[in-house]
């Protein structure tokens, strides 16, 4: 019974914080809510007998990707930018269409989804997953590593401004003056020398 309680508690957390991402106007609060939602999803992976994947979910999503998001939001000092309101008709259409889509999805899942319980325990420790990955999936694995390399180069090229390469230094001497204080109006920061 306790697993059901855990499921509902963390499902509620995942849904509530995911909704906060959509509804809250402040991107920093949105990013932190998304972290909470991802953490709840990691608990779901534990319930699904994949603890290895749960740890990876927290390390990769909560520990790396979302920190990157927060870093960019704070670097661009976006929290004081007024996000323009979406037009009411657009907002209405967005909510109704996504609600209709969601209801249809849940209806068909409830109607045609798998309802019988899986038989027996599911072995998904690091060893079995690793062996399977490097036997059957070695080619996709290499392709993903090349994709990651391409992404690194692309990100570097896109974010580097003319003359500057790579990550601009964040030494306080050059940037504190330009970093907009919370009460300042100017949102612009110079990061490259």
């Amino acid at each position, binding site marked *: 019974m306790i697993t059901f309680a855990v*499921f509902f508690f963390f*499902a509620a957390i*995942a*849904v509530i914080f*995911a909704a906060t*991402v*959509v509804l809250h106007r402040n*991107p920093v609060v949105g*990013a932190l809510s*998304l972290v909470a939602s*991802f953490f709840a*999803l990691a608990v*779901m*992976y534990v*319930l*699904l007998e*994949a603890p290895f*994947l749960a740890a990876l*979910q927290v390390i*990769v*999503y909560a520990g*790396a*990707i979302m920190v*990157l*998001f927060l870093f*960019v939001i704070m670097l*661009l000092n976006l929290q004081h*930018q007024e*996000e*323009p309101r*979406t037009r009411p008709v*657009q907002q209405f259409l967005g909510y109704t269409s*996504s609600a209709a*889509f*969601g209801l249809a999805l*849940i209806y068909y*899942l*409830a109607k045609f*989804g*798998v*309802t019988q*319980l*899986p038989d027996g325990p*599911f072995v*998904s420790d690091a060893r079995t*997953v690793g062996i*399977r990955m490097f036997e059957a999936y070695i080619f*996709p694995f290499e392709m*993903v590593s090349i*994709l*990651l390399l*391409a*992404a*690194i180069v*692309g990100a*570097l*090229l*896109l*974010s580097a401004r003319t003359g500057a390469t790579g990550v601009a230094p964040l030494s306080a001497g050059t940037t504190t003056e330009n970093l907009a204080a919370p009460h300042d109006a100017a*949102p612009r920061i110079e990061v490259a020398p």
Partner: protein
Amino acid sequence: MIPTHWFLILSAILFTIGVCGVLTRKNGITIFMCIELMVNAVNLTFVAYARQFHQLHGLIFVFFVMAIAAAEAAVGLAIFISLFHHRHTIDVDEANLMRW
């Protein structure tokens, strides 16, 4: 043991919330976060089916999805930094140079 379709329904709800965010928000980074949410909802489906059918393929796909999400986050955020440098905003409506 929790039935698989409960996880699927949770995943559907999360996916729908992500869709809603992409459709209604204008802040580029928030839209991006909603996309990450949708990707995670799909991951949950993969893992739920992996346990249902005792297949490791689903788990391995989640690895690949995570790697691709990381690549996507790096490139996407670099695009937003670049956009911010040129337009001083990351409102996606302002990025309309290629719009017909």
